[in-house]
């Protein structure tokens, strides 16, 4: 599997570290909304298809990347720097949302 880093270009997956589900958004640290924290920590969409993910190019430029990867085919449809705000190409889903 190759991930095309926006800085480094296409690189082997062995250079990247998976940083988790990219759909989560952390509640405000001072929030006492237990349901929101529970959803943030435990709820995952686990889709069979396009999935928002955070990866770090740990063995390269070390940038954090927002990647959309198909969990069935490993096809990667978009990669951008995670610090660049805005929804990924296929749209962002609500954290904790269940079908």
């Amino acid at each position, binding site marked *: 599997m190759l991930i095309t880093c*926006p*800085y*480094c*270009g*296409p*690189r*082997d997956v*062995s*250079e990247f570290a998976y940083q988790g589900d990219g759909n989560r958004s952390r509640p405000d640290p001072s929030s006492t909304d237990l349901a929101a924290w529970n959803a943030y920590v435990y709820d995952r969409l686990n889709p069979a298809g396009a999935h928002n993910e955070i990866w770090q190019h*740990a*063995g*390269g*430029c*070390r*940038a954090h990347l927002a990647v959309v990867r198909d969990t069935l085919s490993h096809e990667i449809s978009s990669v951008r*720097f995670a610090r660049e705000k805005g929804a990924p190409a296929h749209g962002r889903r609500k954290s904790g949302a269940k079908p």
Partner: protein
Amino acid sequence: MVEQLSPLAAVFRPGSHGNFVDGVGVTLSEMAPGSIVQLAAWPGEEKKLIAAITSLTGLKLADGAGAGAASERHTVFGFAPGKFLLTDTAEGLVSAAGVVTPAMGTITDLSHGRTAIRVAGPRSEWVLAKLFAVDFSLVAFPQGSGISTAHHDIFAQIQRSGPDRFDLYVFRSFARSFWKMLCHASDEVGYEVR
């Protein structure tokens, strides 16, 4: 300045080695620049940092990922967004680099922290391709440009300093192990240490 000892000294054997009967495929050497520094720009300060590098070294740096340049004295290349590796054959670059102001970014002296190894010769792409999962062709990796990559989770920064020549910057504490592995990888094509 403190006199630097090479971490490669114990395993550095000048001369021809391996399968060199049909010619030497690569030449391996230690570059030992006097100074190696890492420069990092704060977000939005990248252009100013590049201008500061130009005023310090006289080297023009293209505005693009991995862009680099080299002169007799200096080498520079981008290895991450807003980050550059800069070397000088002379010592004391970190104090000369006052042109990089705290408002612009940071400067980190790596002179004693990295070992610079040069791989040159017609089979250098072939040998390095054994070690790194990177496209070393001239099209994907143009002359002057640099990259960050890793070998078995150990970082390496590489600049192409010629059509058949690569300069590798590896952690000093791993340099001897890396050198021995590089020699093994070069055995097949014949190599000269100099």
